[in-house]
């Protein structure tokens, strides 16, 4: 059969955000994947350069609607390190609690989406219902369900009251029971096994070659987790384990995420029980000295990197965000090869893509449809041409 191009997106019911796949298929088998992820470039990095640290933090929190706390923590952590601030332990614990609750709600959401991709809507409804318990806890603690606004440079903005801690602790046993139920379902539900096992396989070597991160990498047996390899906040003090799996397919990624749900629950419980007393913030200096830092954070989807360069003023000179989704795209393109067309949604969903966080600017020539990078000189030349045309007209 000749190769055909199946276009998916930028508008398609399987996609929650705009992305364009050009799937080159031979019958039902996928030969190659070409993708265009630049539909939602928002210029956040540039906007962050124009704001002081205090105002940049809420902006960076809005990079993502799910791992909002990850972005603000990664940024705050980096800036604090540049300012050589040590934030009080209570603030570190609160940051960890919010971060792990965020991981739990993100993984529960993912599990539902993955189930929905294979048409298993019951699990979708169930996980999203259970996710509400986590969301309620987050709302009680921070006043918000999505953008918690807990972080600031130098600590956290809100303290946890004993009643909030108790309410959160009381919700945990029920969640624990549900997580056990999901572990059982993933391992025994026949249609899920049919659709998840052996799909989108990545070996350990491939993961290392393509630089995949997060649950995608851990499902192939790479025990790479920033919380363990480069501990920040209180991860070095609380008991927890890195969850890995050896199967390397969508099934493995599901098992890793459910395992992480249980681990996150353990961390949250331990942090809530051992919450130290004390202040929740220190006063940061207005400016940061000249310097560069690579702030790493284990977001629910994998390693999140904020590169921050300061120049002695009250704002960053450059902030560069590498989201885990960007690191994982190449592995998707690799593991889609030779798979079935019907498996595209679930393989793509298996990395838990977050597209607008990942979006990079692409310059498309409207005339010939070429995409690529335009140099600064070329851009100036074109702009002069345009001006001249307008003057002539």
């Amino acid at each position, binding site marked *: 059969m000749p190769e055909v191009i199946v276009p998916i997106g930028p508008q398609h019911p399987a996609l929650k955000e705009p992305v364009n796949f050009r799937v080159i298929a031979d019958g039902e088998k996928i030969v190659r994947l070409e993708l265009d992820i630049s539909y939602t470039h928002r210029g956040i990095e540039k906007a962050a350069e124009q704001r002081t640290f205090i105002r940049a933090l809420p902006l960076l929190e809005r990079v993502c609607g799910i791992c909002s706390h990850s972005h603000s923590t990664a940024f705050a952590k980096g800036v604090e390190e540049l300012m050589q601030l040590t934030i009080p332990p209570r603030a570190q614990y609160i940051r960890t609690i919010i971060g792990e609750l965020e991981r739990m709600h993100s993984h529960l959401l993912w599990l539902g989406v993955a189930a929905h991709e*294979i*048409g298993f809507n019951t699990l979708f409804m169930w996980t999203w219902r259970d996710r509400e318990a986590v969301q309620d806890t987050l709302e009680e603690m921070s006043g918000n369900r999505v953008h918690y606004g807990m972080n600031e440079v130098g600590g956290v903005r809100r303290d946890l009251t004993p009643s909030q801690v108790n309410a959160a602790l009381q919700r945990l046993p029920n969640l624990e029971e549900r997580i056990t139920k999901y572990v059982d379902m993933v391992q025994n539900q026949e249609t899920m096994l049919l659709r998840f096992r052996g799909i989108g396989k990545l070996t350990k070597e491939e993961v290392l070659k393509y630089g995949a991160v997060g649950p995608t990498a851990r499902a192939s047996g790479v025990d790479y987790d920033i919380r363990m390899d480069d501990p920040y906040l209180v991860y070095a003090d609380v008991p927890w384990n890195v969850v890995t799996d050896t199967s390397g397919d969508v099934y493995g990624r599901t098992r890793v995420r459910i395992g992480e749900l249980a681990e996150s629950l353990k961390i949250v419980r331990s942090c809530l029980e051992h919450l130290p007393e004390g202040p929740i913030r220190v006063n940061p200096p207005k400016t940061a000295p000249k310097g560069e830092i690579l702030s790493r954070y284990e977001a629910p989807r994998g390693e999140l990197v904020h590169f921050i360069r300061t120049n002695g003023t009250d704002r960053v000179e450059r902030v560069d965000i590498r989201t885990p989704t960007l690191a994982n795209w190449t592995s998707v393109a690799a593991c889609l090869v030779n798979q079935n*067309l*019907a498996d595209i949604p679930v393989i793509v969903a298996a990395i838990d893509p977050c597209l607008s966080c990942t979006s990079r600017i692409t310059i498309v020539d409207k005339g010939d449809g070429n995409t690529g990078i335009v140099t600064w000189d070329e851009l100036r030349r074109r702009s002069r041409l345009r001006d001249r045309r307008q003057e002539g007209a």
Partner: protein
Amino acid sequence: MTDTPLIIVYIFLFPGFLFLLAYAMLFEFLDRRIAARMQHRVGPPLFQPFADFVKMLGKEVIDPQGVDRPVFDAAPVIALAAVMTAFLYIPVVSASPLAFQGDLVLVLYLMALPTIILFVMGWLSRNIYSAIGGIRTVTQMFIYEVPFFLALLTPALMAGTWSISEIVSWQQDHLWFMVLQPIGFVVALIGLQAKLERTPFDIPEAETELVAGPWTELTGRRLALMHLASDVSCVTGCALIAALFLGGPTIPWTIAPVWLGWICGFFLFLAKTLVVLLILSSVKVATGRIRIDQLNTIGWKYIASAALVQVAVVLVMNSIRVGA
């Protein structure tokens, strides 16, 4: 019940078209409600299917570019007409007055029509998703139709008649075919689930892959009628299985006055079709969608073999009975 006015009442009012349409809406409501409760949702109110139907009838009909309009308009009507006609031959209160030798075969073919029409519509829509969905519809039909037919014909083999009403009365004298032919019963349920394109067999309209498959370009009254056709198809299918395997509107005893027998029969019909619906809904809720190649393997390897085994068992049982 053989004179003309009564036949007209039978066809158009009760238990014919009017009752059928109302029951189809109720069926959709119950199906959605059961699924919703199992998934911890509230589910739709009682009149939701009817409200949807009326609303969709009033919506704008959009023609995809280059579509063959008369055929596209006619297709949902033909599908609806086919399944509604099929229902007339299935006993509701007692034996159908329209029954004849061979009505079982007629019903089976009428029920296959909506599937073919879905394929035609997918092909006509001039849309890549519809076309792929249409092809999947036919592929799926080739997989489930053979075991489904075999499973539904085995009661006929044992009862020695090709009339659904006579198969029902045979069961009144003997045993329900669910007990006599358990394998056939299970295969028939699986076949019906696949015919109605419900999870795990909703492969042709897989939302996350194909938008809505053959349904993608349907709008307004076309969508309303096609939707109604699939609801009626569900009722007809459940009623057919209730008649062939669960003894239809009868119980092993005869009830004294005829009118009381009819009332009892009607409630038995309701109860039995709802039991079949409950099974189908539970399967829908408890599974995810499988892939078409996986369905092919499962269908031909296991389901078709199971149906053949059932036929063989019935043939052996028949020859023993004849010998005895």
